[in-house]
């Protein structure tokens, strides 16, 4: 009334003048990125992939292209296909993460970066070689095992707490070291041990046999026996 509220408004803006800005200056500072952030580059573990192409089928835009070698050219053990092409057209990707949701073997993860800007559209396609060679910083989107949950049921057992976050479970995809394929699976989950992720059985370039470097098959037997 009589401009008093206008003076009150002036005081509000004056108060904010003395306050620290809430924006951050991007290249120097970065916003805190949460572990579930659906980043641009995909993280793919060839050792876990069976070439089932669930991700390609489930992609709403159909931007994942998978070609496998014909069946019979590979050793039949584990029923795996060898992948020859795994292209993800990032330019059309909307990062919904449904491919990750569809992957039954924890082989595909969302990445955690967001700086894949390119000058040419050609470069916006992630190829299988890039996926193989990239540093692997997987996001925890749809992968609760990375958030420190020990089992499916564990995530439902808690009540919301007022206390501060539990630092034991803080996983920082970007800041931490890259994760290998043995560290990201759900093998430690009790129910998951019975249906192990498809492990890759193949001679690698050095000629050593990587077979059996997954979780020890004997564990499963013991578990079943128990």
């Amino acid at each position, binding site marked *: *009334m*009589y*401009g008093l509220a*206008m003076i009150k*408004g*002036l005081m*509000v*803006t*004056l108060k*904010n*003048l003395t*306050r620290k*800005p*809430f*924006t951050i*200056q991007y290249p120097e500072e970065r916003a805190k990125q949460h572990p579930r952030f659906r980043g641009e580059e995909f993280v793919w573990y060839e050792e876990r992939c069976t070439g089932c192409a669930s991700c390609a089928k489930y992609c709403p835009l159909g931007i994942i292209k998978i070609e496998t070698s014909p069946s019979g050219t590979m050793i039949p053990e584990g029923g795996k296909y060898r992948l020859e092409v795994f292209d993800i057209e990032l330019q059309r990707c909307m990062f919904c993460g449904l491919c990750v949701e569809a992957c039954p073997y924890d082989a595909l993860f969302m990445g955690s970066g967001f700086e894949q800007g390119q000058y040419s559209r050609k470069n916006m396609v992630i190829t299988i070689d890039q996926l193989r060679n990239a540093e692997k910083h997987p996001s925890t989107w749809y992968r609760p095992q990375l958030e420190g949950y020990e089992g499916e049921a564990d995530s439902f057992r808690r009540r919301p707490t007022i206390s501060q976050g539990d630092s034991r479970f803080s996983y920082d995809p970007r800041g931490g070291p890259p994760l290998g394929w043995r560290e990201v699976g759900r093998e430690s989950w009790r129910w998951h041990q019975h249906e192990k992720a498809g492990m890759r059985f193949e001679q690698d370039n050095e000629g050593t046999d990587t077979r059996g470097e997954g979780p020890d098959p004997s564990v499963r037997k013991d578990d079943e026996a128990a």
Partner: protein
Amino acid sequence: MSCQLASDSILYANGIYRVVYEIVGVVLPCWVAYAIAGLVFAFILVNAVLLGAAAITWGERRLLGRFQNRVGPNRWGPFGLFQPIADLVKLLTKEDLRPDGSDRVVFSLVPVLMVAPLILMTAVLPFAKNTALASLNVGVLYILAVSSITSVAIFMAGWSSNNRYAMFGAARAVAVLISYEIPVVLSLLGVVMVAASMSLGTIVEAQALPFFLVQPLAFFVFMAGMSAELNRSPFDVAEAESEIIAGYHTEYSGVRFALIQAAEFGGVGVVAAITATLFLGGWSGPWSEYLGWLWFLIKTGIIVFLFIWFRATYPRLRIDQIMAFSWKFLLPLAMVNLIAVTLEVFLLRGDDGVLTVTDLAIMGVVNLAVTVIAIAVFGNLIKERVSFRTRQPQNVVVPGVSTIEVI
């Protein structure tokens, strides 16, 4: 061949001008010295206005940023100080567009016509003691007259652009400028009456007590009127960016746009300087006479800050409300102020026609009371009020739903 400036010349009081004139006059004919000294001072003034405009764009953007809890431009130079230069370079390298169907001559003339009055206005401003280029004895009148050229330029811009938004902006700008000229002139009459002079230098010297304390009502009316004439918030209808894109300068780009922006922000600076001179005591301040320029800058800065602060806080009024505000609120206030000041000057002035500091203080106290009463009486426009208590409404469409209503 030495030249001496006549002591009754309007340029006589200006020390810089006189020194340049006399030194140059030693070697060159007097009329050349006259021109060279004028050009030297004009150079200073043009740069003062344009650099001032650059500084104000920077200050406005930084301050608006901080008012809005963000940082503002900070990439170029320390604290983003070179941002205006970067803007200028960007604008200069842009294509100079002229819309199809526009009036070529008028369209091109506008930026010049926008900037020229500002520089003309600075000619009578005393930055410090004895520094006004021309100590005109009708300084106030001169400023009012010259500042009106801007409205012609704005209308030219709107008309020649062949754009309906620009036309809207121009029509609004002219309407606003015409209505606000009157309260501004009336509010200045009070100042002139107390100072008993129209010369800005004399007005500064008369301010033993700054006039915004002596005549708060005139200060308020002048600030509001100048906000409107400058198209500043909350009266920025002429270039209301959310309604009519950019108003009259919608079609301007490149270097012409740069000049129009310079005129706008330079206008803020010049008007702030005039306000500081007329109401805040100009260059007068404590300590040394030679620090006058500093006091002047500080006072100008305060006024500029006020303009930016209002812009950060207030929404815009509608054009008819702006007119109503001028005619129904500011004009009566200016009249009240004029009558009050006339009576006070008539009663308080001594036989020698001089008002002492005590007289000014008495006037200030009386005028403060007058201000409060006048705003309370004429404050119809700003009396809108809603109660913020909520209540359970009586007749609702769907019974049984807990509902609250504003009273």
